[in-house]
């Protein structure tokens, strides 16, 4: 017994060092679990508060760009107003039935929650964005995040007033996407090299693809509302082994200057999950 104590005394420094290393590595490799338990609560609020102050200054530098983006989005939305469409006055009339409107509400699938971006990164392999909107304001993990220009990422963690978004520029990104032309489903991933480009892989070669084609989110995603802009095809590359295309896609969102975002809540997700679970059970 005495020898054990002597051993510990002699190698205390080494043991202490190894202990700290193991702690750090455990945190690193069990990122998600640990993050949810301890990190998100304390660290998000702490770092969030500092980030918020910094962001107040930083916002001014991209104000011009941001204004332009918002103006364009406004224009796009205004163009969708019903008042702008002239209905041919022929055989039918447009009647808004109040009962109908109320019942329509329960069929609403996606709800957009605006949020301000308070911290952002593009130069690591795993980029995260922090939003000033948390669980108290209706954000939950796994919700999609889109910006005025296009898709931004997915919520991975929330604290009371902040949430952390895994940006599309993350090694673990997987977004189901489709060419706007209507065919060519594939998967968006990021190779961690250039923050301007992502990759759309697994597109079957039966589809004709050209440079400049628009890539949007597909309607088969349970998070992303369909038809949201992801980017434009830059180069087309054949994968000879699987006979699919790998497309290099220029992102529509300029990740260097994201200031505002919308968290997208899928109101029917619970029902979808339930259905899927029952299917798995019955198998």
């Amino acid at each position, binding site marked *: 017994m005495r020898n054990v104590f002597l051993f510990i005394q002699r190698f*205390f*420094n080494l043991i*202490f*060092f190894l202990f*700290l*290393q193991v*702690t*750090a*590595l*455990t*945190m*690193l*490799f069990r*990122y998600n679990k*640990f*993050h949810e338990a301890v*990190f998100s609560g304390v*660290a998000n609020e*702490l*770092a969030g508060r*500092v*980030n918020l102050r*910094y962001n107040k200054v930083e916002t001014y530098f991209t104000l011009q760009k941001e204004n332009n983006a918002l103006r364009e989005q406004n224009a796009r939305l205004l163009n969708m107003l019903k008042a702008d469409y002239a209905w041919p006055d022929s055989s039918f009339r447009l009647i808004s039935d109040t009962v109908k409107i109320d019942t329509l509400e329960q069929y609403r699938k996606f709800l957009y929650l605006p949020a301000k971006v308070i*911290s952002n*990164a*593009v*130069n*690591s*392999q*795993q980029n*995260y964005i922090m939003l000033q909107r948390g669980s108290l304001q209706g954000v939950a993990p796994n919700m999609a995040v889109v910006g005025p220009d296009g898709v931004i990422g997915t919520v991975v963690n929330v604290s009371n007033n902040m949430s*952390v978004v895994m940006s599309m520029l993350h*090694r673990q990104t997987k977004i189901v996407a489709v060419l706007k032309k209507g065919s060519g489903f594939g998967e968006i991933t990021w190779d*961690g*090299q*250039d*923050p301007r480009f992502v990759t759309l892989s697994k597109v079957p070669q039966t589809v004709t693809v050209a440079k400049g084609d628009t890539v949007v989110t597909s309607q088969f995603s349970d998070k992303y509302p369909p038809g949201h802009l992801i980017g434009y095809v830059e180069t087309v590359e054949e994968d000879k082994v699987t006979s699919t295309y790998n497309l290099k896609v220029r992102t529509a969102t300029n990740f*260097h200057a994201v200031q505002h975002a919308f968290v997208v809540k899928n109101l029917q997700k619970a029902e979808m999950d339930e259905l899927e679970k029952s299917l798995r059970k019955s198998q």
Partner: protein
Amino acid sequence: MSDLLKNIIRFAIFILVQVFVLDKVPPLHRFITPYLYFLFLLWLPFRMPRVGLTLLGFLFGMTLDMFSKTPGLHAAACTLVAYIRPFLISLMMPKEKTEISYAEPSLTSMGWMPYSIYVLILSLLHNGYLVFLEWMQFGDVWYFFGKVLATTGISLLLIAVTELLFTRKSRYRTNLA
């Protein structure tokens, strides 16, 4: 200014500079990530107890991790740097004498050559370990070597600039102090 107060201020400044200046620099190349923050650990006083040094390294890294949302990554690297530091110093220093007469490692207290080697080895260690942890999750061999070398180069450049801009007065510790 007392050593404690001075180091507390340095702690905050190094973290803030790393998070809000260096991490915001638009990436030049995928190999290049500017790291300077660990200079804080290199500048700590000679007379710190080893256990305290290791623990401080861990806490320092963890603080940066809070901002970069990578719990454990920088903490692991910083702990390693803080742990190895005393060995290197005892190896590099022209024995006992200087350790008593100066408070912390610097160009004047250690001499040009030993200090440069001290900085070089610890930068290589820090960046090597950091990139290694990243590389274990994804990447290939060339990526690993390229990134370690490029990142260390940038780190050394930044450290050199810092040393030139902020010359520290290395107090000569007298018997009275």
